[in-house]
């Protein structure tokens, strides 16, 4: 074993590589963050039936399209993991770039959606519903951006056949981001 590589990269004292375990811990903390925001939102929606009038202005089709995009990017992420398992770094990198493309499409749609809503006067301060909307979707969007950047770094290494175990780790994170959106979609776009 090369001493130049960090021990955490391949160490597996708990039965799981330390890097992957760290991602699971990250996801655990994210559950509390997103759970807190979504839980608060659900309680407010149930206590304030008048918010339905505001919620009626979100674009269901944009939300549905972005759900399709994220589900497809999750498929690309798991196919990257599948390729990494078979030690095919180039194929894994290719699927990671496809996942990043999904992230970019998602962000473009979101930017268009937000621009339109802000243009119509639905800003983060116009109503508590919109405060929740921009906060929840904003935090989620930030995770999409961070995930895309990390995946780009890993894809460059994966193409060289280096540190392929990271492909699965970043995939776990990406699937979690997908799951958060799976719940955001009905809460923000369907419940009207």
């Amino acid at each position, binding site marked *: 074993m090369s001493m130049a590589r960090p021990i955490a990269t391949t160490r597996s004292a708990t039965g*799981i590589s330390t890097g992957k375990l760290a991602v699971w811990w990250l996801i655990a903390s994210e559950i509390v963050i997103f759970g807190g925001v979504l839980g608060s939102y659900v309680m407010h929606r149930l206590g304030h039936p008048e918010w339905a009038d505001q919620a009626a202005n979100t674009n269901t089709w944009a939300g549905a399209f972005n759900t399709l995009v994220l*589900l497809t990017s999750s498929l690309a992420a798991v196919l990257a993991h599948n390729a990494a398992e078979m030690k095919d770094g180039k194929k894994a990198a290719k699927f990671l770039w496809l996942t990043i493309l999904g992230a970019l499409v998602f962000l473009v749609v979101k930017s268009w959606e937000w621009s339109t809503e802000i243009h119509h006067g639905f800003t983060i301060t116009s109503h508590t519903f919109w405060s929740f909307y921009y906060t929840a979707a904003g935090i989620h969007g930030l995770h999409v951006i961070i995930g895309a950047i990390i995946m780009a770094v890993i894809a460059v290494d994966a193409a060289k056949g280096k540190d392929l175990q990271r492909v699965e780790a970043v995939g776990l994170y990406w699937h979690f981001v997908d799951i958060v959106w799976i719940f955001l979609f009905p809460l923000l776009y369907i419940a009207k």
Partner: protein
Amino acid sequence: MSDATTAPDSGHGDSGHHEDHSKHYIKIWGILLVLLVASIIGPELGHPTVTLITAFGIAFVKAYLVIKHFMHLTVEKRYIGFLMLTMLAFMLVFVAGVAPDVMKHEGQRWTNDAAKAAVEKGLKAHPPHHAGEPADQKAHEQH
């Protein structure tokens, strides 16, 4: 470092033997897309129970499929699942503790006048519309 603490990351707990699971993942993706379509069409019918099942029930099914088939949590070390459940339990404790104050606007010895007034004002200005009816822009204009 000993071999006991250094292991290649199999991802499935089946180190050494790796098969191509591409077709399986694509099949799961297909099911997820069908569920997505159902979650959009269901609420259009305008029936509250159907909306609840198709929009929110299906979200849980979709999340389960992603967790099981894409994240492989069911074949991961068991303590990872317990870790996730612990975090969900924290979330539920938070909701259970706060819900009475947020969802109710009055109790035996207290009343939240501001929240009650906001609900009454909102419902008076914009009575609940029927499902499927296009939203107007009056809410914004009022602000």
